[in-house]
């Protein structure tokens, strides 16, 4: 869906049909490890070849697949694929008053891959009231419109504001010179630095490409630690 939507979006902007998709190799796993592509026994000789070579994905929905690579971006840490990133999402739940007898609440715990019963920390309601001057834990009856009062249901709100997981992204575009035009090198700039005290040297390099239809500025930076 995202691919087709992106194609349509590029066309609606006056662009041309994209012909490549740059994505993480992990995304290719997810696309190749489908039931259709791994039923080796039902495909005869082709199945044997497929088992030997492994399912490959040279193209998908008309787009040539280019696998992204990991780059050493931060000193002292593992190389990273910048099409893979961490994202935090959030959920809420409305539940009955959890401090009452006879009320139990269970949520899915993804770490243990199971449902788990929630247990309030000791003195939870007291600490909450201390933080909010006791204003929010009182009974909450409301007028019934006829001079009396009716009890309301008393529900709590639970928030899980930092559910964090990894997500993959893709870059979809058009390559080659047919539509983009020839490439000309523009003004370049390179500077080298050397930090003898910490044994670090490196360089920054900037160049500007001029295309017939697009212009982009790229900055490359290399840092190496002398051994």
């Amino acid at each position: 869906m995202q691919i087709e939507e992106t194609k349509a979006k590029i066309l609606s902007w006056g662009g041309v049909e994209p012909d490549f998709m740059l994505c993480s190799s992990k995304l290719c796993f997810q696309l190749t490890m489908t039931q259709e592509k791994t039923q080796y026994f039902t495909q005869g000789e082709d199945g044997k070849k497929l088992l030997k070579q492994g399912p490959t994905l040279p193209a998908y929905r008309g787009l040539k697949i280019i696998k992204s690579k990991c780059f050493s971006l931060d000193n002292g840490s593992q190389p990273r694929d910048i099409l893979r990133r961490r994202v935090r999402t959030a959920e809420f739940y409305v539940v009955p008053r959890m401090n009452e007898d006879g009320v139990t609440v269970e949520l899915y715990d993804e770490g243990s891959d199971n449902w788990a019963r929630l247990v309030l920390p000791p003195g939870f309601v007291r600490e909450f009231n201390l933080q909010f001057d006791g204003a929010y834990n009182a009974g909450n009856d409301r007028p019934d419109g006829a001079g009396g009062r009716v009890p309301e249901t008393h529900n709590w709100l639970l928030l899980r504001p930092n559910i964090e997981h990894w997500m993959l992204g893709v870059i979809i575009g058009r390559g080659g010179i047919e539509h983009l035009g020839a490439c000309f090198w523009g003004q370049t700039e390179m500077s080298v630095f050397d930090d003898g005290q910490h044994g670090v040297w490196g360089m920054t390099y900037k160049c500007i490409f001029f295309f017939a239809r697009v212009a982009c500025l790229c900055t490359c930076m290399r840092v190496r630690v002398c051994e």
Partner: protein
Amino acid sequence: MHRVWDVSYDGYTNGKGVAIMNWTPEDIKQFKSEQQETGNEFDGKDIIALPMNMPCQQLPSPMPYKVFSGPAPIPQHVTDDLSVEDLSTFTTKFFNKSSLGDYQERFEDILGKVNQKLNIVSGLHESRSAASAAMANESTMCRMFYQGTVKYKCQRQENFVTGCGHHGPDYPGVASVRNGKTLMTSAAPALQMLAIK
């Protein structure tokens, strides 16, 4: 070229456990610290419990972050250059669909004060775009609160509320929509700066 973020789910890190934050000053301080540390994987308490005594049994989903931050405009970045400034209409629709009634003012008041203490929604978080966060190895937060799945028993009666399910049958496209990225469809094309190695 068109860069599409978050087309596929690729594994759980943290934050979907069952540890409840206590409202002690120490717990609050630790939670804020862990939440603001977007450069590392989240390692704080998972759940904020609010004994609010709400009259309603459910809320519309998703719940926008504006209910926490109040009328102060905090833009939500959708690309490097563009941000959604006006979520007021969406927030108004949320309250119109809710059955909070007279409780709405109190609801907003409580969540605003909770946000002052915990900084759940801050300008710092919202101003980080996906591209710059990915380069800096930081996580981003798109503050849409979705209804989660929950089981509870009350007066011997068992209830099961089916949520939106961030980690249900994810496939390319759906995960990003659940993640609040539908906002991106309103973004106009923009020339992006792309680092190439």
